[in-house]
């Protein structure tokens, strides 16, 4: 198990994405070239689905969501940049596709599966990069996610939404920073800035279903990935190093009460409206 500090030390002689693939080989014995091939298939599926689902209406399993991406796609943005707008529409589209049993890449989890497509589809549309360069950033996103998964958790049931969507956004911020700078230090700063901004975020799905508030959190927090990357690229540093922020997130997660960890019993799941919604849905859902 490697900390971010370990990884960054190894970047003196190799680019970050290669360090991440090499470390994976030491741990699991998988040939870096083969692994790169598998990851490239996954990234292609992410981009394919982003294109296919972009701005579509979805019939989700409970019907509590399904038209958010469609609405935003019809709307002319007043504040978001072109990049953020594409990323937000994509994140909502994939999160709604997930809620309607569409094909997704659980990167890092199904509930937070909109963020990475948002980031990568926006890069593709706005920067039109070489696929291999995009793949390098995808690997870096994986490296950041892996450090969080191994040091803490990426599961909402274990650590709250900070661990799930927080990790997705940290991975997204890492990918964006790497795509522009190739600088491991900026990657760490961007990821740390994300996690610090969602520290303590609870997992409170209405009825336990991956729809409310999950879909809109994907849409909103892809923008946290973007702004955190922008901050890091400008030279702003996280005063607390990434590894320590992850440790703090883990401690916060494990002290969250059970009802705020994916049980569907606390937070916004425990509001009068949510309870009414579920009472009505129960008739159809069991």
């Amino acid at each position, binding site marked *: 198990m490697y900390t971010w500090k370990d990884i960054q030390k190894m970047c003196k002689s190799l680019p970050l994405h290669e360090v*991440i*693939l090499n470390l*994976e080989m030491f*741990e*699991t014995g*998988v040939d870096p070239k083969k*692994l790169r091939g*598998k*990851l490239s298939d*996954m990234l292609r*599926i992410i981009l394919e689905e982003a294109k296919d689902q972009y701005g579509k209406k979805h019939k*989700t*399993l*409970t019907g509590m969501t399904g038209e958010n991406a469609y609405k935003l796609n019809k709307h002319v943005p007043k504040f978001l940049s072109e990049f953020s707008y594409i990323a937000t529409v994509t994140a909502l589209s994939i999160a709604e*596709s*997930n*809620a*309607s*049993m*569409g*094909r*997704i*890449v*659980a*990167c*890092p*989890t*199904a*509930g937070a*599966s909109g963020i990475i497509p948002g980031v990568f589809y926006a890069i593709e549309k706005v920067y039109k990069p070489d696929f291999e360069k995009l793949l390098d950033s*995808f*690997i870096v*996103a*994986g*490296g950041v*996610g*892996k450090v969080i*998964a*191994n040091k803490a958790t*990426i*599961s909402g*049931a274990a650590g709250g939404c900070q661990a799930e969507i927080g990790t997705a956004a940290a991975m997204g911020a890492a990918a964006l920073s790497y795509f522009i700078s190739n600088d491991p230090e900026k990657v760490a700063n961007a990821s740390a800035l994300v996690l610090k901004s969602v520290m303590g975020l609870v997992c409170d799905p209405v*009825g*336990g*279903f*991956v*729809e409310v508030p999950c879909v809109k959190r994907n849409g909103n927090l892809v923008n946290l990935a973007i702004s955190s990357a922008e901050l890091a690229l400008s030279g702003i540093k996280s005063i607390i190093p990434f590894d320590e922020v992850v440790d703090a997130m883990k401690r916060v997660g494990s002290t969250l009460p059970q009802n705020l960890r994916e049980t569907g019993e606390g937070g916004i799941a425990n509001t009068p409206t949510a309870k009414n919604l579920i009472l009505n*849905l129960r008739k*159809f*859902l*069991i």
Partner: protein
Amino acid sequence: MNLLKVLGPVMVGPSSSHTLGALKIARFVYKLIGGVPDEVTFILHGSFSKTYKGHGTDRALLAGIIGLRQDNPEIKNAYEIAKNFGLKFHFKLEDLGDVHPNTVKIKVKRDNVFHEIEGSSIGGGDIKITFIDSVPCELSWDYDTLVIVNKDAPSALKSILATIKVNVANLYLRRINLLQEKALTIIELDEPIENIEEIKSLPSVFECYFIRRDN
């Protein structure tokens, strides 16, 4: 956790534990019986029984039992596909006792042969097969798996193992019927075997199923 797991897997939504894990348990059964059953009953326990339609657990189970892979976009249409196969299916909600909250017991009938498999979806899409025909086990399906009904007699296991040329990772053996002299052997292997017919032809082997892992 490895990189492929952090950045994936490719699946259909909405939940790795309620959808993907459920599908994998049912697909294990599909592979074990070697095709789509004639009739299936899914007995849902705990969290599976409370939220199954909202998480698509029902469609995932049906998709798995008709053999769809975890990334097949047709999973959402599993009801229609199952009906087209002429599959008779039932969902029951039951308390299966002191088991994992996401547990399902699957009873299948194919060509008048019955099987009963129980499995739990233990998080992140990982599964644990906990019973095969009332024999307790702990299969992750991370391995190629052999399930053998064999003669409950001296040297039966020896003759089976003598035909297996690849490395054995885990092995379970339980007597299932003393009067019929039957035992069930489950073997998890590091690599697929080529000589399944040879094992099937052993005098001590009554039934033999080979369940290849999904890659």
